[in-house]
């Protein structure tokens, strides 16, 4: 469903991605792991059009989407939970959720009620400003906001970053229900254990390149160690 072919990305003079090839099939859960600065977030930003790239480098349903704007890519069904959550501070919790679904109106399992059912606290705090919530609750808003468009692919950039373990557990507990809704998920994570526990396949990145592509169930600790750090365990 989603494919990158030799994807490169630059920040001015600095090249952050050197020919990245990944694929995501419909309904699949793919983890992308790697250390800080490996290029994971840049990869997400390239797929969602925040960073422009050559048209043929990113394909969605076999059509090039590299030259489209973020909004056009989102309307094709690729929703993003951005790193750092990025809630809109002027909007209430409910408005943050609604704004996620207003540009792409398609039938699907997700609605305001369904998101409240997934994360009940968001229903209770619907009138609060989005940024008045705790970090974990804000992450739930960010995930709910992305689900509101009933995406076929959900990109989650570092959803556990900066959260307490008990909160991370709650958020990861929601992922199976999101998959039941039919969406494919890409999880960008530094928490390797969490990511491997829910993913079907895993890519490891280092210094802007994919250093490992494997089935999550088959990958060994040694594989990951060498792909993550570039040295054998």
């Amino acid at each position: 469903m989603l494919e990158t072919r030799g994807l490169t990305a630059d920040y001015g003079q600095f090249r952050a991605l050197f020919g990245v090839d990944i694929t995501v099939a419909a309904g699949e859960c793919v983890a992308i792991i790697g250390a800080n600065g490996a290029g994971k977030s840049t990869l997400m930003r390239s797929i969602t059009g925040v960073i422009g790239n050559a048209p043929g480098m990113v394909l969605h349903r076999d059509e090039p989407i590299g030259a489209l704007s973020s909004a056009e890519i989102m309307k094709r069904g690729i929703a993003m939970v951005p790193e750092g959550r990025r809630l809109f501070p002027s909007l209430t919790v409910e408005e943050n959720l609604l704004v996620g679904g207003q540009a792409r109106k398609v039938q699907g399992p997700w609605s305001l009620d369904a998101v409240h059912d997934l994360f009940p606290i968001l229903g209770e705090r619907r009138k609060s400003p989005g940024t008045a919530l705790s970090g974990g609750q804000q992450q739930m808003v960010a995930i709910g906001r992305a689900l509101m468009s009933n995406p076929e692919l959900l990109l989650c950039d570092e959803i556990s970053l900066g959260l307490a373990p008990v909160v991370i557990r709650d958020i990861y507990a929601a992922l199976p229900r999101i998959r039941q809704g039919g969406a494919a998920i890409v999880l960008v994570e530094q928490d390797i254990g969490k990511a491997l526990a829910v993913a079907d396949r895993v890519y490891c990145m280092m210094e802007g390149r994919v250093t490992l592509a494997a089935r999550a169930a088959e990958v060994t600790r040694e594989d990951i160690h060498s792909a993550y750090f570039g040295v054998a365990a």
Partner: protein
Amino acid sequence: MIWLDTLVQGILLGGLYALFAAGLSLVFGIMRLVNLAHGDLIILAAYLVLMGVTLLGLSPWIAALIAMPVMFGLGWLLQAAVLNRVLGKDILPPLLVTFGLSVALQNGLLEAFSADSRRIPVGALEGASLDLGLVTVGIMPLMTFASAIVTIIALNALFYHTALGRAFRATSDDAVTAGLMGIEPKRIFAIATGIAMVVVTLAALYLGMRANFDPSIGPARLIYAFEAVIIGGLGSLWGTLAGGIIIGVAQTFGAALNPEWQILAGHIAFLAVMLLRPRGLFPRAVD
């Protein structure tokens, strides 16, 4: 009793200034753009209404209703074709572009309509007044003030109770993340400027019916609008009305003391508020 009358006239005058300023406030609130051609766009709209009245024989109200979609289209085009290209981290390019637009508009209007001052004829309504016992108020200033209130209520309803308003606020907060939500910031900006130009047309209608105008008076309207927005606090529409009223009241009291002091008194009131409350009375924007 003369002071009460002066106060009431000043408050009503504030309605006109709030109408001048509402469009400016809207655009600033959403895209942090200060449009230096705002006053000249008001004058352009006034000439559009005047043309509807003199060339087509329409009533000013109908002429304004026709001018509104024209001005919306013009604002949309201005934003999409010009201003969106210069909006960015640097605030100087949009200032320079709108300053240039202001000069071009003034000269264009001068070429098209000459320097003669004009007025939108409105018939008996012009001198009509309402006796409220203690004070007598003109129907026209009263209508201006009521229009300002209705405009602000309508803009606030749009802002806080519609999907478009949500998109406005989301884009104002964080344009990149708004893009990830399927919102095209450039399209949102174009719609916002279009709506601001509809408000500008309403302001132009009252300006043109109440006083003479010529191609050169735009910048002075911009100053009043700007002061009203700053006094109110950037991005707050009710604050903008309060700002307009403060300038209006200062002007009428200044004029009551000495007719030469009218304009000066408004500017002094502005400076006084800036001394006491540098961020305005009701600041919404944090930057």
